């Protein structure tokens, strides 16, 4: 399953990669140039040592290029250098300096490029996730999305930062080494590299093999964590059943499994390092021994033998890393594919002319239909009007379409038929940001941002004064609660702060919505976790405040419903009744049954108390 999924992303989307590069591409080029300089400088070191040993100290001919020799002659030739051997030492140090500086530049530039790339990816993902339609979020898994936005982005970034240049470096080094070595002695060069392909292939095969053990170890760690997490979250159950011992046994089993599997993985790595060291050193030994034999025959100089052994030692490391680089390339490609999948989701669009008309709060639903798919209507043929300042209550059972109805008004979804007019304008022709900022909504399970209560309430108006915020909190009956916290309005809520109860959250969200000063406000069952007395207090405070605000309230509390100017009763997505309290109690239906609960309660009480009295 996992494999099949990964296959889907096996190709790199170059267009996407290019667009994410956005101006950072040139840094990759700079980095590659610096890399080339560094490789050349690194190779010069052994050449200088060899030159010193053979030409200066010894009395062999030099094999350096003619222009270098001309410079040496100008300086005063062998005699001069023999008298001033420090010049050779200084040359060695300067080439190391060049190498060091170029290496520094290579890493700096690639860091700039890869971090820029990662930033662009993160920004784009964040922006895009806010711009996709509501429906996408309703069905997506938060954990999966977060993982794509964080670890997948990081996998791609790490590949660029570490491995991309590693590939280039291997290529440069091997070709430069080949060039220099072959120009010295072809046979010797071939012998010096005979085991390198073996090393490369070995590393490649090995990293393929180890992948499985990696997975096993990862899984065992996941099991260990989840067993631990379950134990900690269920600590009360464990204690209540006195199961400490069996929990310890369960944990021990996971802990042992993780230890054994990871130990096996590490041993595999040990085997890899051991055997690749063996191959690498054997290659160096072969080079040294052949070099010795050639030198004894006079075919190579001592300095040249030193060049060969040093170069071979320099080459074995990148070559044995090759397998890892390729494995990482595979991972990075898959990760980029997973990021791309998010970015490919179309953004929310403007269906109409995106105007910004004055909104006073008159609303009309004209034959509105809505369904998530073509076969199943959630709402059908809904028509009603609301005048500015009116309060509209909506009553209906779970799944009757109440929430969908108000979501349509916010244009979180588009009607499939019919139209919704706000002050005579079809909402599809109103720019969605403009429309939404004129319609305040409080959800049943409101979301608070992880920041202070003050910032949460004032989030739509960053310039709001403390008095405004307190006033809103007072209307929402949450001012006292907030002052009861140690840090008052500066208390941080949400994931990394204090956990508020459901009712407290709802009230903070109501205060936040009030700060919008919107002409239309919606309560989507947003006082369900607030007790009835507080509910009434909030509604009274609201009534005093709003003059011309059109209000929608979804509720099943009769006290709330009966105060409304108009009550809409929804059943199975149809508007079955609408009217005032007086009109609806006069008719058979859902509303009347709810309204009569009070009578039922009185009967119940009379029975309980009466029976007691009769005894």
């Amino acid at each position: 399953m996992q494999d099949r999924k990964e296959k889907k992303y096996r190709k790199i989307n170059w267009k996407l990669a290019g667009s994410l590069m956005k101006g950072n591409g040139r840094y990759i080029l700079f980095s590659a140039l610096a890399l080339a300089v560094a490789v050349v400088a690194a190779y010069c070191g052994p050449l200088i040592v060899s030159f010193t040993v053979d030409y200066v100290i010894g009395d062999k001919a030099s094999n350096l290029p003619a222009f270098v020799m001309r410079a040496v002659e100008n300086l005063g030739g062998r005699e001069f250098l023999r008298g001033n051997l420090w010049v050779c030492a200084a040359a060695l140090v300067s080439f190391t300096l060049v190498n060091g500086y170029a290496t520094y530049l290579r890493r700096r530039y690639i860091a700039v490029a890869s971090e820029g790339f990662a930033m662009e990816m993160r920004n784009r993902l964040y922006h895009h996730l806010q711009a996709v339609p509501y429906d996408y979020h309703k069905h997506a898994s938060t954990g999966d999305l977060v993982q794509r936005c964080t670890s997948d982005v990081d996998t791609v970034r790490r590949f660029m930062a570490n491995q991309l240049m590693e590939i280039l470096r291997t290529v440069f080094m091997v070709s430069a080494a080949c060039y220099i070595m072959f120009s010295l002695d072809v046979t010797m060069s071939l012998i010096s590299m005979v085991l390198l392909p073996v090393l490369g292939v070995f590393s490649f095969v090995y990293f393929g093999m180890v992948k499985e053990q990696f997975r096993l170890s990862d899984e065992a760690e996941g099991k260990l964590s989840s067993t631990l997490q379950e134990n900690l979250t269920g600590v009360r159950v464990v204690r209540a059943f006195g199961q400490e011992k069996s929990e310890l046994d369960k944990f021990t089993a996971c802990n042992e499994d993780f230890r054994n599997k990871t130990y096996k993985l590490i041993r595999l790595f040990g085997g890899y390092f051991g055997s690749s060291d063996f191959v690498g050193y054997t290659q160096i030994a072969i080079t040294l021994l052949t070099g010795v034999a050639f030198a004894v025959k006079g075919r190579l100089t001592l300095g040249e033998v030193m060049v060969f052994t040093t170069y071979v030692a320099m080459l074995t490391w990148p070559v044995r890393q090759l397998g890892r680089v390729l494995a990482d390339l595979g991972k990075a490609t898959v990760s980029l594919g997973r990021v791309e999948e998010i970015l490919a989701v179309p953004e929310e669009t403007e269906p109409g002319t995106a105007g910004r008309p004055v909104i006073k709060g008159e609303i009309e639903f004209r034959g509105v239909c809505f369904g998530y798919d073509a076969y199943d209507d959630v709402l059908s043929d809904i028509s009603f009007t609301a005048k500015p300042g009116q309060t509209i209550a909506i009553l209906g059972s779970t799944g009757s379409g109440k929430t969908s109805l108000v979501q349509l008004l916010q244009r979180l979804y588009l009607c499939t038929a019919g139209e919704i007019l706000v002050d005579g304008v079809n909402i599809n022709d109103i720019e969605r940001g403009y429309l939404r900022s004129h319609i305040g909504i409080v959800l049943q399970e409101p979301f608070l941002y992880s920041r202070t209560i003050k910032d949460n309430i004032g989030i739509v108006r960053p310039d709001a004064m403390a008095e405004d915020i307190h006033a809103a909190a007072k209307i929402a009956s949450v001012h006292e609660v907030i002052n009861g916290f140690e840090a008052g309005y500066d208390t941080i809520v949400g994931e990394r702060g204090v956990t508020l109860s459901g009712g407290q959250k709802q009230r903070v969200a109501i205060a936040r919505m009030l700060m919008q000063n919107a002409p239309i406000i919606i309560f989507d069952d947003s006082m369900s976790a607030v007790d009835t007395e507080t509910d009434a207090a909030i509604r009274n405070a609201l009534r005093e405040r709003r003059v011309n605000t059109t209000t929608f309230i979804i509720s099943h509390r009769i006290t709330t419903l009966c105060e409304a100017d108009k009550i809409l009763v929804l059943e199975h997505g149809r508007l079955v009744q609408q009217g005032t309290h007086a009109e609806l109690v006069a008719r058979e239906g859902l509303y009347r049954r709810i309204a009569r609960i009070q009578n039922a309660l009185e009967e119940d009480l009379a029975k309980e108390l009466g029976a007691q009295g009769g005894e």
Partner: protein
Amino acid sequence: MSNTAIEEQDYDRDLKVDIGIWKRLFRYVLSNKRACVLSVVTNMVIALIDIAYPLMSRYAIDNFIGKGTTQGILPFILLYFVLITAQAFGVYSFVAQAGRIEMNVSFDIRQQAFKKLQELSFSFYDKTAVGYLMARMVSDVGRLSELLSWGFVDLLWASTYVVGVMIAMLLLNWKLALLALVVIPPLAVISLYFKKRILQYQRKVRKTNSRITGAFNEGIMGAVTTKTLVREKANYGEFSELSGTMRQASVKAAVWSAIFMPIVMFLGSIGTGIALYKGGVDVMIGAIGFGTLSAFVSYTMNFFEPIQQLAGILAELQSAQASAERVIGLIDTPLEIVDSPEVVEKYGDNFHPKRENWEPITGEVEFEHVDFSYKEGECVLCDFSLHVKPGENIALVGETGAGKSTIVNLVCRFYEPTSGRVLIDGRDYRERSQLWLQAGLGYVLQTPHLFSGTIRDNIVYGRKDATEQEIREAAQMVRAEEFILRQERGYDTEVGEGGARLSTGEKQLISFARVILANPRIFVLDEATSSVDTETEQLIQEAITKVLRGRTSFIVAHRLSTIRSADRILVIRGGRITEQGTHRELLKLRGYYYNLYTTQFREEASGAILDEKAIEN
């Protein structure tokens, strides 16, 4: 929670390395005697071989190339391959021993910490977030054991290598050696400085990274709210600022580590330069051979590696100080509820109970002038007294924070009274072991908690030796069997992590079956407020009635039906009983209970009517 937040901040600072703590941690390493001895041996061997290679080259240069002969090359080749083979095995053993130590250290620490977690009282869990504990147990322990084990073997290797090379160089030519070794002190100082800076920057990157993860999480979870508040632009602005900070911090960290290597290489090359210059002159005057010169050049070229490794270990120790303190702190957390030695002697401890000595429980519970407070000076329960007869059903009602859960937790001995006594069957429960009481207790939570595994595993949780027949009877009694058999694999269906594959109602029923099977004398129910559909609600109510029958029970009640059927209702306000009696008695008072009942009646009735409509659908 706030405790946790403050403690997290320790990770931002470089704490002073506390040798005592590391000594304690190092004991975990030393307990792997065989691996430690093998590591010492292996590391010496590898380091010596590393030192030997340049000497081999020296021999080859001076004896074969210098003299222009291949005489005696065969033993030389043999010796070379012996070295290579020994090195290959050495490297394998090096990695394997380090791995063994690493995994054993993390295993032992986790094991010890887990045992501790099974014994810590609930006051600890109230103050400590699960996420915090997970971070200590998973990442901190992982990081420490990695540092301890690999740090240990690296330290062995690097110090052997450094000392060995010094000796080799001094033996070859002490004057030249002293000159070439001049670079070591600055190399060490600079390495240490850079390693520390690099770790600091990396920490900043990690911190920013976790903020980015948080921002994504919030952005995705709050996507709808963001849309309705039209906050997209403002959120994006904040986010791009954060991701800009991340880029800056990462580039900075990368630049610091990019500067580090060249500087080390440069210092190293000064050593090589000195060797080449001074050694070259010596060769010319015939003081040393070419071979010695080549050995010196190799040594000076490889010197910076072990030095910077040593510096790295030191810097890591400092940066892991906070992790070390937290982990040791967890292992050392004092237990608040402990059984006295005499009690353990007779009844056994949590992991080794002596069930044969346990008296059966009849279920009489008495609170005798119990005071309880979570914090000093703040009384949650004051002078609370209550006598419950065996088999009596008690419903506790009142507002959140009034003390209902505290009473229940005291009954379970999840907490102990600050003063006063709780008697079970007439004896202070501290005279018996915690496990004695808790094994005779049934407890169903507001949010039912299941463990991953099959449905059967969960039902037998409290009584692992139950027969198939008993399991089915328990499930049938709470009418859970119907839905269990509807599952694809019946009782063997996996419930998923935390029971995620089942609905809340189904989880409730299974947790009732679990209690029925354990057959406790005392039963505690923290009733759920969350709504389930009417049909399941019906089943749950029936299940509750069955579980309550014949058991002493305490119910933190929300459903009217449960409250009404209790033998006695206690209204708890501000840590005291303000009203108590049967349903009718309390209604007659027309006090708090009356109000609560009428409100609840309306809510439940309208809920029921609306649900009916939904079911018709």
